[in-house]
């Protein structure tokens, strides 16, 4: 079996396992996994930019929120059906990421971090400032009646799980397709040595912009999906904290691996959920785990597996 078919078998297997899990999981974990899959889409989107292209953004909450509000506001104020709203959410994230990418990519490194952070902060403040439509920090409910897509009620637990699985599969397929495509390899080449890639004649800016747009749009898809599946849109999803989360998930799971984002999101979710039972300072445990990871598993969980056992992992 060559590496590509091994990889396809593995990722197909993961989807199949996630599909099968819905029949055995108890209600609580069933619900959690649906949420984790949607959040993992966000992390996968982030990973396209950070893991494969080496660009560290601190503003991805802006793309997540663009998708969420692009979806929710059109339902709330224009009466869009959810399928059309989902598309406007994706379109909103596409436009925002294209504009921000075009501007921010004039910078690199730490300046890129700050520029994305600043745009995201302005975006967050704008959500508050437009409180008349967005209800600011308080946010608003997307009513159950507005969450019936093509006859399927997304507020139902098993429908939600299935929808989350579809979202997750789409994001994973996009990521896999990208890393196996020549364009994906060029991104890795840019990450490893931008100057050399430039000398080979690649249009660096165009490739990076594509990475920002793909990354931002996937994040927006996750945001729109999250709002539709869980029935709420609020400004807290646009705060800095929600820009740092995908970074943590990706680093934990393994930057530049296709499965890393899912593993990282899953790990972090249960870390917080279980440690919150032990102490109200559960973020203390999360902090200690982060420090330990950097000391003992620098490439993240999947990254370490790839390094030690399976160098073929994409």
């Amino acid at each position: 079996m060559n590496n590509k078919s091994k990889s396809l078998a593995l990722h197909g297997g993961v989807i199949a396992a996630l599909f099968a899990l819905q029949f055995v999981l108890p209600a609580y974990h069933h619900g959690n996994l649906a949420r984790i899959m949607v959040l993992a889409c966000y992390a996968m989107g982030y990973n396209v930019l950070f893991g494969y292209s080496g660009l560290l953004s601190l503003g991805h909450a802006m793309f997540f929120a663009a998708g969420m509000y692009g979806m929710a506001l059109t339902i709330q104020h224009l009466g869009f059906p959810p399928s059309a709203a989902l598309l406007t959410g994706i379109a909103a994230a596409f436009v925002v990421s294209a504009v921000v990418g075009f501007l921010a990519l004039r910078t690199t490194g730490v300046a890129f971090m700050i520029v994305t952070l600043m745009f995201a902060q302005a975006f967050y403040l704008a959500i508050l400032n437009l409180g008349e439509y967005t209800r600011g920090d308080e946010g608003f409910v997307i009513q159950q009646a507005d969450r019936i897509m093509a006859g399927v009620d997304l507020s139902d637990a098993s429908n939600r799980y299935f929808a989350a699985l579809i979202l997750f599969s789409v994001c994973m397929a996009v990521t896999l397709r990208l890393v196996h495509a020549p364009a994906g390899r060029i991104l890795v080449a840019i990450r490893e040595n931008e100057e050399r890639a430039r000398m080979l004649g690649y249009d660096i800016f165009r490739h990076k912009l594509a990475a920002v747009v793909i990354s931002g749009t996937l994040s927006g898809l996750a945001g729109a999906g999250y709002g539709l599946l869980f029935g709420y849109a609020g400004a807290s999803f646009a705060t800095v904290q929600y820009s740092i989360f995908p970074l943590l998930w990706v680093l934990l799971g393994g930057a530049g691996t296709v499965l890393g984002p899912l593993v990282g999101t899953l790990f972090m979710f249960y870390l917080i959920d279980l440690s919150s039972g032990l102490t109200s300072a559960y973020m203390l445990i999360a902090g200690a785990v982060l420090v330990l990871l950097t000391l003992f598993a620098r490439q993240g969980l999947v990254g370490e597996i790839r390094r030690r056992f399976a160098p073929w992992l994409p």
Partner: protein
Amino acid sequence: MDLGPYLFLASLEGAVTAAVLALTAVGLSLVFGVMRVVNVAHGEFFMLGAVLAWWVASLAGGHPAIGFALAVLVAPVIAGAIAAAADFIVLKRLDYDPENTIVATIGILYIIQQTVLMTYGPDARPVEAPFSYRIYFPWFGYSAYKLFVIAAAVAILLGVWAIMARTRIGLVLRATQLDRETAQAFGIPVERVYALVFGLGAGLAALAAVLIVPIQQAHYLMGGDPLLLSFIVVIIGGLGSLSGTVVAAIIIGMSDGIISVFFTPTLAKIIATLLVAFILVFRPTGLFGTRSA
């Protein structure tokens, strides 16, 4: 109020913001310049300074000035020692790899923040100012302590400048900043210099917090804003340039005050934020930097 006095007041407020910001950001800039790492936990050392100041002041009793003076001496030292220990235990072992350092300092951020929550609690607690004189301008009243904060920050910054420019320690720091390997080859104990710099950076942030805590209150989540703002200042000022950092702090602090005169408050924040983004978009090395970030 007329525009003139209003601008005067906004400038005063901007100057206080700028003074505290400059101190905090110079600490971050030192770490950045010498060690080439991003310390995401910098804001937490600021917060530690404020919380320790409350602790020292409440233990001291007597006239508020006694507690405040003790806090100025003690809080930065403790915060600096904790930072140096973190450098020694964690960052050194990461070989200061940029990405891993970011994750590790995010971890340290949570550890500090949550430890404070568990011990000090979730309240915002005030520390009394060493003196509570109020200056009466014809149009408004103003706290004299705020003017003291500006003066104190200027004095401390001059001190930092003197250390960097005139002392042997400063020479060692500058040498390490320019070229780590060569410095090591010339017998500079780079490891200890790094721990010292990390501690010094944290100490400056803590000192800034001690100055501000009689105006604001000590709260376990107060580290977020100073972190963001000092980041911005360090980048705008140009990486590793201490004087650039100070100038950028003045620009950011003053514009925060003055833009608020002309726009509704939240709109002013949006404009100020976008301004920073566009400065970087069109001058990616910062206003005074020569080196790309």
